[in-house]
C-alpha cells in the first residue's frame, strides 16, 4: 500500500514538477527583466543601499505571502493577515513600551517576552480560523473574512484605538538592527523562507499539504488526516502574521491600530504572481518570494523615477492578472 502510494505520488509530482520549473523560470525571467529595465533607467536602482531598501520593503509582505502560500496550496485563502498583523503588533508592543499609559503592568519586558506574545496572538487567531475551517467546513473565505473584522475590532478595543508608542530599543532591533550588514527584517524573511522551503519540499508534512490541495478526496481516502493539515496551515499563516506585525511595529517605532490594512491583498498578489494556483496543490514558496520581490522592486523603482503611486496600483493590477493569464495558457499547453 505504502509503496503504491509513493509511486503514484512521485509520478504525480514529476509531471507537475516539470510544469513548475517552467513557471518558476518564467517568473524569474520576468523578475530579471524588470530589474534590468530599472537598472538602465535609474542610476540609483542597483546600488547596495537601494538593494537593501528593496529587500527591507519586501520583508513584511514576503513573510505574509509565504504563510499565505501554505494556505493557498490547500485550496484555502487567508483574508485575516492584515488585521492579525495589527493585533499581534499592538499586543506585543504593549509588553515593550515605556509609555506609562499604553503598556501592560510591569512593561517594558524583555524582547523575547514580546516576541513570544506576538507569535502566540498570531497562532491563536490562526488556530481559531483553522478550527472553524477544518471542523465545521466553513469556507476559508468566510472564516477568514470574519477574522479580518474581529481581529481589527480586537486591536481597537485592546489599545483603546490609540497607538502604542515608545517601544524599547531592544525590541526595535528586530526592525531596525542588522546582522553582518543585513537588516534584521531581511534576515527574518530569509529564515522564514528557508524553513518553509525545507518543510514544503523535504518533509512528509509538506508533501501532505500538496496532496490535500491537489485532491482532498484522494488524500482522505489514502488515510491522510486532512482536517489536521488544514488546521495547521492557518496556524502557520497566523504565526507568520504575528511575526510580520512585530517587524512592522519595530520598524515604525510604534504599534498603530490602522496598521496592516489591505496587506492581505499584497500577500495574495505575491503568491499568485509567483505561480501558485488558487485551486490548490500547485506552487512553490520560491515563486512566492520572487512574486513579493517583483512587487517590492516595482514600487521602489517607480518611486525612484518619481511616478505617482496611483500608477503603481494600476501596474500591480495588470501584473496579477497577466501572471494568471500566462499561467492558464501554460497549463492548457501542458
Amino acid at each position, binding site marked *: 500500500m505504502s509503496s503504491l502510494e509513493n509511486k503514484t505520488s512521485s509520478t504525480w509530482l514529476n509531471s507537475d514538477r516539470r510544469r513548475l520549473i517552467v513557471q518558476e523560470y518564467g517568473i524569474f525571467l520576468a523578475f530579471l527583466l524588470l530589474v534590468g529595465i530599472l537598472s538602465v533607467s535609474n542610476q540609483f536602482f542597483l546600488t547596495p*543601499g537601494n538593494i537593501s531598501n528593496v529587500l527591507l*520593503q519586501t520583508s513584511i509582505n514576503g513573510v505574509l505571502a509565504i504563510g499565505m502560500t501554505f494556505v493557498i496550496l490547500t485550496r484555502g485563502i487567508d483574508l485575516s493577515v492584515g488585521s492579525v498583523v495589527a493585533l499581534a503588533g499592538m499586543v506585543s508592543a504593549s509588553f515593550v513600551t515605556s509609555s506609562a499609559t499604553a503598556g501592560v503592568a510591569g512593561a517594558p519586558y524583555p524582547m523575547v517576552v514580546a516576541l513570544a506574545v506576538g507569535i502566540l496572538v498570531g497562532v491563536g487567531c490562526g488556530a481559531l480560523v483553522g478550527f472553524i475551517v477544518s471542523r465545521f467546513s466553513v469556507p476559508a473565505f468566510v472564516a477568514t473574512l470574519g477574522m479580518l473584522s474581529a481581529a481589527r475590532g480586537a486591536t*481597537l478595543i485592546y489599545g483603546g*484605538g490609540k*497607538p502604542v508608542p515608545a517601544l524599547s530599543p531592544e525590541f526595535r532591533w528586530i526592525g531596525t538592527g542588522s546582522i553582518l550588514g543585513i537588516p534584521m527584517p531581511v534576515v527574518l524573511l530569509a529564515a522564514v523562507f528557508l524553513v518553509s522551503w525545507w518543510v514544503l519540499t523535504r518533509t512528509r508534512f509538506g508533501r501532505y499539504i500538496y496532496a490535500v490541495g491537489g485532491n482532498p478526496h484522494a488524500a482522505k481516502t489514502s488515510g491522510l488526516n486532512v482536517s489536521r493539515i488544514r488546521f495547521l496551515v492557518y496556524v502557520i499563516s497566523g504565526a507568520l502574521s504575528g511575526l510580520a506585525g512585530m517587524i512592522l511595529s519595530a520598524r*515604525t517605532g510604534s504599534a498603530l491600530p490602522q496598521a496592516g490594512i489591505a496587506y492581505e491583498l499584497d500577500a495574495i498578489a505575491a503568491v499568485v504572481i509567483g505561480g501558485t494556483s488558487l485551486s490548490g496543490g500547485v506552487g512553490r514558496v520560491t515563486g512566492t518570494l520572487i512574486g513579493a520581490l517583483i512587487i517590492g522592486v516595482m514600487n521602489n523603482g517607480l*518611486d525612484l523615477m518619481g511616478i505617482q503611486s496611483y500608477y503603481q496600483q494600476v501596474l500591480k493590477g495588470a501584473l496579477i492578472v497577466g501572471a494568471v493569464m500566462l499561467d492558464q495558457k501554460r497549463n492548457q499547453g501542458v
Partner: protein
Amino acid sequence: MKKLMIALASATVLLASSAMAQEKLKIGAAPYGLNAEFMQIWSAALEEHPAVKNGEIELTVFDGRYDALVQQEQFNTMITQKFNAIIFVPIDIEAGATAVQAAHDAGIPVVGSNTRVNSDLLAAYVGSDDTVSGYMEAKTVLDKIGCKGNVVIIEGPIGQSAQISRLEGNQKALAECPDVKVLEQQTANWSRAEAQTLMENWLTSHPGEINGVIGQNDEMALGAIEAIKAAGLNVGDFAIAGIDGVTDALNAVKEGTMTSILQDARAQAQGALDLAIFHAKQGDYKPQSDIWAQYPDMPFNDGKDKEYNVPWTPVTAENVDKLLDMRK
C-alpha cells in the same frame, strides 16, 4: 433624623433627575470614524463637556466607519428618534450635504465640526482652517533651511479636503521662497508606514540633496524620521514638519526631531456642542465650555456666527510638556 434627611434629600434628587430626564435634550454626534487618535480625542472631549457631565443633555456618539452612506443612515436614525441637534463631522465634503438637507427638512439644527460639508444649511461650523496650518508648517521648514535648498512634500490622500487645503498653504509658503526646489511630491495616504517607504526611496534617488520634509500630517512626518534614522543619517540635518499634534509627534517635538502644529480637537468638539445646544434651545443658552475663555480670538458672539475658526497652536519646546500632560 439625620438619616431621614439624607433619604429625603436623595429622593428629591432622584425625582428631580427623572423629571429632568424627560426634558433632557438629545444631541447626536456623527464623526466620520473612530479608528484614529484625533477623532478619539474629539469624542472624548464631547463626553467631558460640562453640559454632558452635569446631565443637562443626553449625548450619543455614532461611529461613521469612514463611509458616507453609513453616516447618512445614522442621520435617518437620529431624525426618526427626534434628536434635538446633530454635530456632524462628514467623511466626504459632497456626500454629507444630503444628510444635512434631511435633518434640516426635519427641523433639526446641524452643527459642523472639524471637516467641511458643501452645504449652506449648517447652523454653524467649528473647525480649523487647513490652509493656515499648511502655510505654518511649510514656513517652519523653510525658515529652518534659510529659504534655500530642496524639500519634499508628503501628501494626504489626493482629493480629501485637508490634503487640498494643506497643499494650498504649503504652496503659499513655498512661493515666498522661490529658490527652494520641491524635489518630490507624493501621497502616503496619512500613513506612517507608507511615508517611511517613500522617504527611503527618495533618500536613495536624491542622496544628500533633501534639506526639508513637509509632511501634511504628523504620522507621515514620523515615517520620514524613521526612514532617515534607518538610512544612518542625522535627523538633525533635516527640517521636518507635521500637523495635528498626535501623541507620538509631541514626543518627537520634545526630542527636537520635528515640529508640529496642534489641531485642537477638544475645542472643535466642545465648541460645536455648545453651539448645538444653543441652536436646539433656540438661543436660550450660555456656552459652558472653557474653550471660549481659552481662545479670546474666537468669541462665542451670542451664537450669531456661522463660522468659528479654532486657532492652530504650534507645538514648541515650551508648551510640549503641558500638552503631553493633557493626554494622560
